[in-house]
């Protein structure tokens, strides 16, 4: 069974332009959920030129890194929509009927969903 583990990072809501301009530390994976929203994996602090920005520690996502084969075998059969072709990129939508996200980067992919759904997703993906 797929094991999804807690992901830690910063959840940031800020003006899109200010988010665009953020210099994240080396190696930070930034999942841009929306133009004004990002989840920066592993980040612990951020300088952002938006005095109203919401920056909070986020621990409510669980995820699992998958190889290209694991993605093809255990995840893709449960997705109705096409994956984006660009890499790296974020895809969001139902995976096996659970709201989930995929970070696609080269040969690997990070599958993540809210911790509240982890039992459903793991069960459905087997």
């Amino acid at each position, binding site marked *: 069974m797929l094991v999804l583990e807690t992901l830690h990072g910063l959840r940031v809501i800020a003006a899109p332009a200010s988010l665009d301009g953020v210099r994240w530390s080396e190696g930070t994976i930034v999942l841009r959920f*929306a133009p004004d929203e990002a989840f920066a994996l592993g980040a612990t602090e951020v300088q952002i030129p938006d005095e109203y920005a919401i920056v909070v520690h986020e621990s409510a996502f669980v995820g699992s890194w998958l190889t290209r084969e694991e993605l093809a075998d255990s995840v893709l059969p449960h997705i109705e929509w096409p994956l984006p072709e660009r890499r790296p990129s974020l895809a*969001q*939508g139902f995976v096996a009927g659970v*709201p989930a996200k995929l970070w696609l980067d080269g040969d690997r992919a990070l599958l993540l969903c809210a911790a509240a759904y982890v039992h459903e997703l793991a069960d459905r993906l087997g």
Partner: protein
Amino acid sequence: MWITCPRCGGRPVEEYRFGGEVRGAAAWITDAALRDVDYVWMYDNIEGVTTERWFHGAGCRRWLTIRRDTTTDTIVA
């Protein structure tokens, strides 16, 4: 039915929540109270192209506005 989210791309309708037509009270109703009744309760119920709001709940969790032909359920530009 598939709806294209400007942020996430095309997704089946099951990923969205319908948020209703973009509407206002009928301008031709001059009485304020009647106009409010109209705004609260009445619908255009258009057989044709409507402008409406959908929420991409399974994706970016943001709203989008689309135009849909209710006679065919096709999304028009």
